[in-house]
Protein backbone atom coordinates (compact mmCIF):
# COMPACT_ATOMS: atom_id res chain seq x y z
CA UNK A 1 0.00 0.00 0.00
CA UNK A 2 1.40 3.34 -1.01
CA UNK A 3 1.81 6.28 1.35
CA UNK A 4 -1.07 8.07 -0.26
CA UNK A 5 -3.18 4.97 -0.05
CA UNK A 6 -2.56 4.54 3.67
CA UNK A 7 -3.32 8.18 4.21
CA UNK A 8 -6.60 7.99 2.31
CA UNK A 9 -7.64 4.87 4.15
CA UNK A 10 -6.93 6.43 7.50
CA UNK A 11 -8.79 9.57 6.50
CA UNK A 12 -11.82 7.59 5.48
CA UNK A 13 -11.77 5.51 8.63
CA UNK A 14 -11.40 8.64 10.73
CA UNK A 15 -14.30 10.39 9.03
CA UNK A 16 -16.45 7.30 9.37
CA UNK A 17 -15.40 6.78 12.95
CA UNK A 18 -16.12 10.36 13.91
CA UNK A 19 -19.58 10.20 12.41
CA UNK A 20 -20.38 6.98 14.18
CA UNK A 21 -18.78 8.27 17.31
CA UNK A 22 -20.86 11.41 17.18
CA UNK A 23 -24.00 9.36 16.88
CA UNK A 24 -22.93 6.97 19.62
CA UNK A 25 -21.94 9.74 21.94
CA UNK A 26 -24.98 11.94 21.50
CA UNK A 27 -27.79 9.57 20.75
CA UNK A 28 -26.87 5.97 21.34
CA UNK A 29 -25.42 6.20 24.81
CA UNK A 30 -27.75 7.07 27.66
CA UNK A 31 -27.24 10.25 29.67
CA UNK A 32 -25.27 9.84 32.84
CA UNK A 33 -27.23 9.11 35.99
CA UNK A 34 -25.47 11.76 38.08
CA UNK A 35 -24.04 14.31 35.65
CA UNK A 36 -26.69 14.31 33.00
CA UNK A 37 -26.08 15.31 29.40
CA UNK A 38 -22.88 17.21 30.10
CA UNK A 39 -21.12 13.91 30.70
CA UNK A 40 -21.22 13.32 26.95
CA UNK A 41 -18.19 15.58 26.59
CA UNK A 42 -16.22 12.71 28.05
CA UNK A 43 -16.57 10.86 24.75
CA UNK A 44 -14.49 13.66 23.30
CA UNK A 45 -12.24 14.42 26.23
CA UNK A 46 -11.08 10.92 27.13
CA UNK A 47 -10.16 9.78 23.59
CA UNK A 48 -8.34 13.08 22.99
CA UNK A 49 -6.30 12.65 26.14
CA UNK A 50 -5.46 9.01 25.50
CA UNK A 51 -4.41 9.67 21.92
CA UNK A 52 -2.32 12.61 23.12
CA UNK A 53 -0.45 10.39 25.54
CA UNK A 54 0.18 7.98 22.70
CA UNK A 55 1.35 10.84 20.48
CA UNK A 56 3.84 12.03 23.09
CA UNK A 57 5.05 8.50 23.66
CA UNK A 58 5.73 8.27 19.96
CA UNK A 59 7.61 11.58 20.11
CA UNK A 60 9.74 10.03 22.85
CA UNK A 61 10.51 6.85 20.92
CA UNK A 62 11.10 8.67 17.64
CA UNK A 63 13.43 11.12 19.40
CA UNK A 64 15.53 8.29 20.80
CA UNK A 65 15.66 6.68 17.35
CA UNK A 66 16.69 9.95 15.79
CA UNK A 67 19.55 10.55 18.22
CA UNK A 68 20.68 6.99 17.85
CA UNK A 69 20.41 6.52 14.09
CA UNK A 70 20.01 10.03 12.69
CA UNK A 71 17.24 9.00 10.37
CA UNK A 72 15.37 12.03 9.13
CA UNK A 73 12.17 10.05 9.05
CA UNK A 74 12.33 9.50 12.80
CA UNK A 75 12.70 13.21 13.30
CA UNK A 76 9.79 13.98 11.00
CA UNK A 77 7.62 11.54 12.95
CA UNK A 78 8.65 13.13 16.23
CA UNK A 79 7.90 16.63 15.03
CA UNK A 80 4.56 15.73 13.49
CA UNK A 81 3.47 13.69 16.46
CA UNK A 82 4.34 16.53 18.81
CA UNK A 83 2.26 18.96 16.78
CA UNK A 84 -0.75 16.66 16.85
CA UNK A 85 -0.20 15.87 20.52
CA UNK A 86 -0.14 19.53 21.50
CA UNK A 87 -3.30 20.18 19.50
CA UNK A 88 -5.17 17.23 20.95
CA UNK A 89 -4.06 17.98 24.51
CA UNK A 90 -5.16 21.58 24.22
CA UNK A 91 -8.53 20.43 22.90
CA UNK A 92 -8.80 17.85 25.66
CA UNK A 93 -8.12 20.43 28.34
CA UNK A 94 -10.64 22.78 26.77
CA UNK A 95 -13.23 20.01 26.62
CA UNK A 96 -12.50 19.12 30.22
CA UNK A 97 -12.86 22.73 31.20
CA UNK A 98 -16.24 22.95 29.51
CA UNK A 99 -17.25 19.84 31.38
CA UNK A 100 -15.90 21.20 34.62
CA UNK A 101 -17.88 24.41 34.65
CA UNK A 102 -21.33 22.91 35.18
CA UNK A 103 -20.01 19.90 37.07
CA UNK A 104 -17.56 21.42 39.52
CA UNK A 105 -18.73 24.98 39.21
CA UNK A 106 -15.34 26.11 38.02
CA UNK A 107 -13.46 26.42 34.71
CA UNK A 108 -10.21 25.36 36.32
CA UNK A 109 -8.96 23.35 39.24
CA UNK A 110 -5.62 22.11 40.43
CA UNK A 111 -6.62 18.50 40.18
CA UNK A 112 -3.54 16.29 39.98
CA UNK A 113 -4.18 14.79 36.58
CA UNK A 114 -5.16 18.10 35.05
CA UNK A 115 -2.08 19.78 36.45
CA UNK A 116 0.20 17.08 35.13
CA UNK A 117 -1.42 17.22 31.71
CA UNK A 118 -1.02 20.98 31.60
CA UNK A 119 2.65 20.70 32.47
CA UNK A 120 2.99 18.09 29.73
CA UNK A 121 1.39 20.54 27.32
CA UNK A 122 3.81 23.28 28.38
CA UNK A 123 6.80 21.01 27.88
CA UNK A 124 5.77 20.10 24.36
CA UNK A 125 4.82 23.62 23.42
CA UNK A 126 8.39 24.36 24.47
CA UNK A 127 9.47 21.55 22.13
CA UNK A 128 7.69 23.17 19.19
CA UNK A 129 8.98 26.62 20.05
CA UNK A 130 12.52 25.33 20.27
CA UNK A 131 12.24 23.81 16.81
CA UNK A 132 10.82 27.02 15.42
CA UNK A 133 13.55 29.17 16.92
CA UNK A 134 16.62 27.16 15.91
CA UNK A 135 17.72 28.14 12.42
CA UNK A 136 19.73 25.10 11.48
CA UNK A 137 17.25 22.30 10.95
CA UNK A 138 19.28 19.34 12.14
CA UNK A 139 20.43 21.20 15.21
CA UNK A 140 16.85 22.00 16.07
CA UNK A 141 16.01 18.35 15.60
CA UNK A 142 18.74 17.25 18.02
CA UNK A 143 17.82 19.84 20.64
CA UNK A 144 14.15 19.02 20.60
CA UNK A 145 14.88 15.29 20.65
CA UNK A 146 16.81 15.73 23.90
CA UNK A 147 14.06 17.93 25.32
CA UNK A 148 11.44 15.35 24.40
CA UNK A 149 13.39 12.57 26.11
CA UNK A 150 13.84 14.52 29.32
CA UNK A 151 10.29 15.82 29.21
CA UNK A 152 8.75 12.43 28.70
CA UNK A 153 10.83 10.70 31.38
CA UNK A 154 9.92 13.55 33.69
CA UNK A 155 6.18 12.90 33.38
CA UNK A 156 5.89 10.14 36.00
CA UNK A 157 8.04 12.19 38.38
CA UNK A 158 5.87 15.25 37.77
CA UNK A 159 2.74 13.22 38.31
CA UNK A 160 3.97 11.76 41.59
CA UNK A 161 5.02 15.11 42.92
CA UNK A 162 1.74 16.73 42.01
CA UNK A 163 -0.34 13.93 43.53
CA UNK A 164 1.65 14.01 46.79
CA UNK A 165 1.46 17.78 46.86
CA UNK A 166 -2.29 17.75 46.38
CA UNK A 167 -3.00 15.14 49.02
CA UNK A 168 -1.18 17.39 51.43
CA UNK A 169 -2.96 20.57 50.66
CA UNK A 170 -6.41 19.57 49.60
CA UNK A 171 -8.59 16.52 49.82
CA UNK A 172 -8.59 14.56 46.55
CA UNK A 173 -11.28 15.53 44.10
CA UNK A 174 -14.38 13.47 44.42
CA UNK A 175 -15.42 13.87 40.85
CA UNK A 176 -12.84 12.81 38.28
CA UNK A 177 -13.17 13.29 34.56
CA UNK A 178 -14.24 9.90 33.36
CA UNK A 179 -17.37 7.88 32.84
CA UNK A 180 -18.90 7.43 36.24
CA UNK A 181 -20.93 4.41 35.29
CA UNK A 182 -19.99 1.81 32.73
CA UNK A 183 -23.19 1.01 30.96
CA UNK A 184 -22.37 -1.09 27.86
CA UNK A 185 -23.72 1.56 25.48
CA UNK A 186 -21.41 4.07 27.09
CA UNK A 187 -18.45 1.76 26.59
CA UNK A 188 -19.35 1.40 22.93
CA UNK A 189 -19.54 5.15 22.56
CA UNK A 190 -16.21 5.56 24.28
CA UNK A 191 -14.39 2.96 22.23
CA UNK A 192 -15.82 4.12 18.91
CA UNK A 193 -14.69 7.64 19.59
CA UNK A 194 -11.32 6.41 20.76
CA UNK A 195 -10.87 4.48 17.53
CA UNK A 196 -12.04 7.47 15.50
CA UNK A 197 -9.55 9.84 17.09
CA UNK A 198 -6.78 7.27 16.72
CA UNK A 199 -7.48 7.09 13.01
CA UNK A 200 -7.55 10.85 12.83
CA UNK A 201 -4.15 10.97 14.53
CA UNK A 202 -2.84 8.44 12.04
CA UNK A 203 -4.29 10.42 9.15
CA UNK A 204 -2.73 13.70 10.28
CA UNK A 205 0.59 11.96 10.89
CA UNK A 206 0.60 10.35 7.46
CA UNK A 207 -0.28 13.60 5.76
CA UNK A 208 2.35 15.53 7.64
CA UNK A 209 4.98 12.93 6.80
CA UNK A 210 4.11 13.25 3.14
CA UNK A 211 4.65 16.99 3.44
CA UNK A 212 8.10 16.37 4.93
CA UNK A 213 8.96 13.92 2.16
CA UNK A 214 7.99 16.50 -0.43
CA UNK A 215 10.26 19.00 1.31
CA UNK A 216 13.17 16.53 1.25
CA UNK A 217 12.57 15.90 -2.45
CA UNK A 218 12.60 19.64 -3.08
CA UNK A 219 15.91 20.01 -1.25
CA UNK A 220 17.39 17.09 -3.11
CA UNK A 221 16.41 18.60 -6.47
CA UNK A 222 17.83 21.94 -5.42
CA UNK A 223 21.12 20.36 -4.44
CA UNK A 224 21.35 18.52 -7.75
CA UNK A 225 20.66 21.62 -9.77
CA UNK A 226 22.71 24.17 -7.95
CA UNK A 227 25.45 22.00 -6.50
Amino acid at each position, binding site marked *: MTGRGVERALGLLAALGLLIGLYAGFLYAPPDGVQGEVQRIMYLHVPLILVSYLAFFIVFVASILY*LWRRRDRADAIAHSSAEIGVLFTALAIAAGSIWGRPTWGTWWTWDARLTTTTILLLIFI*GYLMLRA*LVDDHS*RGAVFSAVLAI*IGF*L*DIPIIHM*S*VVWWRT*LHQPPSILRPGPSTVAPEMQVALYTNLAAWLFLYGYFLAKRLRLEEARWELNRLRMENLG
Partner: protein
Amino acid sequence: MSFSRRVWAIARKDLLAEWRDRESVTAMFYFAFLVLFLFSFALGADQALIRGASSGLLWLAFTFTSVLGLSRSVQGELENDCLDGLLLYPAQREAIYLGKLVGNFSSILVVELVILPIFAVLYNMDLWAQLPKLMVIAVPGTLGLAAAGTLLSTMTAGLRAREAMLPFLLFPVTIPLLLAAVRGTEVVLHGEPFELAVPWLKLMAAFDIVVLVVSLMTFEYLVEE
Protein backbone atom coordinates in the same frame (compact mmCIF):
# COMPACT_ATOMS: atom_id res chain seq x y z
CA MET B 1 42.36 10.77 35.59
CA SER B 2 42.47 13.39 32.89
CA PHE B 3 38.68 13.31 32.80
CA SER B 4 38.33 14.62 36.32
CA ARG B 5 41.24 16.98 35.77
CA ARG B 6 39.30 18.57 32.95
CA VAL B 7 36.06 18.71 34.92
CA TRP B 8 37.79 20.55 37.75
CA ALA B 9 39.67 22.78 35.29
CA ILE B 10 36.40 23.95 33.77
CA ALA B 11 34.65 24.43 37.11
CA ARG B 12 37.66 26.20 38.53
CA LYS B 13 37.93 28.49 35.53
CA ASP B 14 34.24 29.40 35.76
CA LEU B 15 34.44 30.16 39.45
CA LEU B 16 37.73 32.03 39.10
CA ALA B 17 36.38 34.21 36.29
CA GLU B 18 33.28 34.81 38.37
CA TRP B 19 35.30 35.70 41.42
CA ARG B 20 37.27 38.31 39.45
CA ASP B 21 34.22 40.30 38.44
CA ARG B 22 31.66 39.03 40.82
CA GLU B 23 29.19 40.43 38.34
CA SER B 24 27.05 37.37 38.02
CA VAL B 25 26.75 36.34 41.65
CA THR B 26 26.06 39.93 42.65
CA ALA B 27 23.25 40.16 40.14
CA MET B 28 21.94 36.80 41.30
CA PHE B 29 22.06 37.83 44.91
CA TYR B 30 20.26 41.11 44.32
CA PHE B 31 17.61 39.43 42.27
CA ALA B 32 16.88 36.81 44.95
CA PHE B 33 16.83 39.48 47.58
CA LEU B 34 14.40 41.59 45.57
CA VAL B 35 12.05 38.67 45.07
CA LEU B 36 11.98 37.90 48.77
CA PHE B 37 11.71 41.51 49.76
CA LEU B 38 8.90 42.37 47.37
CA PHE B 39 6.88 39.33 48.29
CA SER B 40 7.30 39.96 51.98
CA PHE B 41 6.13 43.47 51.32
CA ALA B 42 3.22 42.40 49.15
CA LEU B 43 1.94 39.85 51.61
CA GLY B 44 1.62 42.58 54.14
CA ALA B 45 1.39 42.09 57.86
CA ASP B 46 -0.39 38.77 57.78
CA GLN B 47 2.17 36.69 59.66
CA ALA B 48 0.32 33.42 59.22
CA LEU B 49 0.18 33.92 55.47
CA ILE B 50 3.85 34.73 55.35
CA ARG B 51 4.81 31.69 57.38
CA GLY B 52 2.71 29.49 55.15
CA ALA B 53 4.14 30.87 51.95
CA SER B 54 7.74 31.33 53.04
CA SER B 55 9.25 28.07 51.80
CA GLY B 56 7.57 28.52 48.43
CA LEU B 57 8.86 32.06 48.13
CA LEU B 58 12.35 31.03 49.07
CA TRP B 59 12.49 28.44 46.32
CA LEU B 60 10.87 30.76 43.84
CA ALA B 61 13.67 33.20 44.55
CA PHE B 62 16.26 30.43 44.16
CA THR B 63 14.76 29.25 40.87
CA PHE B 64 14.60 32.70 39.29
CA THR B 65 18.10 33.41 40.42
CA SER B 66 19.34 30.13 38.96
CA VAL B 67 18.03 31.11 35.56
CA LEU B 68 19.97 34.34 35.80
CA GLY B 69 23.15 32.52 36.74
CA LEU B 70 22.77 29.89 34.04
CA SER B 71 22.23 32.46 31.32
CA ARG B 72 25.25 34.42 32.35
CA SER B 73 27.40 31.34 32.51
CA VAL B 74 26.62 30.47 28.92
CA GLN B 75 26.94 34.09 27.92
CA GLY B 76 30.49 34.05 29.23
CA GLU B 77 31.35 31.22 26.88
CA LEU B 78 29.69 32.79 23.87
CA GLU B 79 31.76 35.96 24.13
CA ASN B 80 34.88 35.84 22.00
CA ASP B 81 33.98 32.38 20.71
CA CYS B 82 35.17 30.78 23.94
CA LEU B 83 32.64 28.00 23.60
CA ASP B 84 34.14 27.05 20.26
CA GLY B 85 37.55 27.09 21.89
CA LEU B 86 36.28 24.88 24.69
CA LEU B 87 34.90 22.38 22.24
CA LEU B 88 38.19 22.21 20.33
CA TYR B 89 40.02 20.62 23.22
CA PRO B 90 40.39 16.83 23.04
CA ALA B 91 38.08 16.56 25.99
CA GLN B 92 35.20 14.16 26.35
CA ARG B 93 31.99 16.09 25.97
CA GLU B 94 30.71 14.63 29.22
CA ALA B 95 33.61 16.25 31.04
CA ILE B 96 32.57 19.59 29.61
CA TYR B 97 28.99 19.11 30.79
CA LEU B 98 30.07 18.05 34.27
CA GLY B 99 32.55 20.91 34.52
CA LYS B 100 29.88 23.44 33.66
CA LEU B 101 27.48 21.69 36.02
CA VAL B 102 29.86 21.90 38.96
CA GLY B 103 30.49 25.57 38.22
CA ASN B 104 26.79 26.40 37.96
CA PHE B 105 25.89 24.33 40.99
CA SER B 106 28.53 26.05 43.12
CA SER B 107 27.52 29.59 42.16
CA ILE B 108 23.86 28.93 42.83
CA LEU B 109 24.63 27.25 46.15
CA VAL B 110 26.81 30.15 47.25
CA VAL B 111 24.03 32.60 46.48
CA GLU B 112 21.56 30.44 48.40
CA LEU B 113 23.83 30.41 51.44
CA VAL B 114 24.10 34.17 51.38
CA ILE B 115 20.37 34.61 50.91
CA LEU B 116 19.37 32.35 53.78
CA PRO B 117 20.25 34.78 56.59
CA ILE B 118 18.46 37.57 54.72
CA PHE B 119 15.47 35.29 54.40
CA ALA B 120 15.63 34.54 58.12
CA VAL B 121 15.53 38.24 58.90
CA LEU B 122 12.80 39.22 56.44
CA TYR B 123 10.53 36.32 57.29
CA ASN B 124 11.30 36.11 60.97
CA MET B 125 12.61 32.59 60.98
CA ASP B 126 15.16 30.95 63.21
CA LEU B 127 17.37 29.14 60.74
CA TRP B 128 20.65 28.59 62.46
CA ALA B 129 19.77 25.35 64.23
CA GLN B 130 18.07 24.03 61.12
CA LEU B 131 20.85 24.84 58.74
CA PRO B 132 22.26 21.32 58.29
CA LYS B 133 18.82 19.88 57.59
CA LEU B 134 18.08 22.75 55.23
CA MET B 135 21.25 21.90 53.35
CA VAL B 136 20.16 18.30 53.04
CA ILE B 137 17.10 19.59 51.22
CA ALA B 138 18.81 22.36 49.29
CA VAL B 139 21.68 20.36 47.83
CA PRO B 140 19.71 17.82 45.74
CA GLY B 141 17.27 20.55 44.79
CA THR B 142 20.01 22.86 43.59
CA LEU B 143 21.77 19.99 41.87
CA GLY B 144 18.64 19.21 39.86
CA LEU B 145 18.22 22.85 38.89
CA ALA B 146 21.86 23.08 37.85
CA ALA B 147 21.80 19.78 35.95
CA ALA B 148 18.66 20.53 33.95
CA GLY B 149 19.69 24.14 33.64
CA THR B 150 23.14 23.39 32.25
CA LEU B 151 21.61 21.12 29.64
CA LEU B 152 18.86 23.51 28.63
CA SER B 153 20.98 26.65 28.71
CA THR B 154 23.36 24.98 26.26
CA MET B 155 20.40 24.54 23.92
CA THR B 156 19.05 28.03 24.26
CA ALA B 157 22.46 29.71 24.12
CA GLY B 158 22.39 30.77 20.50
CA LEU B 159 18.69 31.48 20.16
CA ARG B 160 17.13 34.80 19.36
CA ALA B 161 14.65 34.63 22.23
CA ARG B 162 17.26 33.25 24.61
CA GLU B 163 16.17 35.13 27.71
CA ALA B 164 12.60 33.95 27.49
CA MET B 165 13.27 30.43 26.26
CA LEU B 166 15.44 29.20 29.10
CA PRO B 167 12.84 29.77 31.84
CA PHE B 168 10.07 28.60 29.54
CA LEU B 169 11.78 25.27 29.04
CA LEU B 170 13.31 24.92 32.49
CA PHE B 171 10.32 25.66 34.72
CA PRO B 172 7.86 22.99 33.57
CA VAL B 173 10.57 20.36 33.62
CA THR B 174 11.75 21.23 37.13
CA ILE B 175 8.32 21.56 38.76
CA PRO B 176 8.61 18.26 40.64
CA LEU B 177 11.95 19.38 41.98
CA LEU B 178 10.46 22.63 43.15
CA LEU B 179 7.51 21.00 44.84
CA ALA B 180 9.83 18.56 46.62
CA ALA B 181 12.24 21.28 47.72
CA VAL B 182 9.44 23.51 49.00
CA ARG B 183 7.77 20.74 50.93
CA GLY B 184 11.09 19.54 52.33
CA THR B 185 12.00 23.06 53.41
CA GLU B 186 8.60 23.42 55.02
CA VAL B 187 9.12 20.25 57.01
CA VAL B 188 12.37 21.61 58.37
CA LEU B 189 11.21 25.15 59.02
CA HIS B 190 8.00 24.11 60.73
CA GLY B 191 9.87 21.67 62.94
CA GLU B 192 7.97 18.69 61.60
CA PRO B 193 9.54 15.22 61.92
CA PHE B 194 12.21 14.80 59.25
CA GLU B 195 10.82 11.45 58.02
CA LEU B 196 8.10 13.49 56.32
CA ALA B 197 10.72 15.02 54.09
CA VAL B 198 12.24 11.69 53.09
CA PRO B 199 9.83 10.75 50.27
CA TRP B 200 10.43 14.19 48.79
CA LEU B 201 14.17 13.65 49.00
CA LYS B 202 13.70 10.40 47.12
CA LEU B 203 11.74 12.25 44.48
CA MET B 204 14.51 14.80 44.08
CA ALA B 205 17.06 12.00 43.85
CA ALA B 206 15.00 10.31 41.13
CA PHE B 207 14.76 13.56 39.20
CA ASP B 208 18.46 14.29 39.57
CA ILE B 209 19.43 10.82 38.38
CA VAL B 210 17.17 10.95 35.33
CA VAL B 211 18.41 14.38 34.31
CA LEU B 212 22.08 13.54 34.88
CA VAL B 213 21.91 10.29 32.96
CA VAL B 214 20.05 11.77 29.99
CA SER B 215 22.33 14.83 29.95
CA LEU B 216 25.51 12.77 30.01
CA MET B 217 24.23 10.55 27.25
CA THR B 218 23.06 13.34 24.97
CA PHE B 219 25.37 16.27 25.62
CA GLU B 220 27.79 15.40 22.85
CA TYR B 221 24.98 15.59 20.32
CA LEU B 222 24.00 18.99 21.59
CA VAL B 223 27.36 20.62 21.08
CA GLU B 224 28.37 19.32 17.71
CA GLU B 225 27.01 21.44 14.96
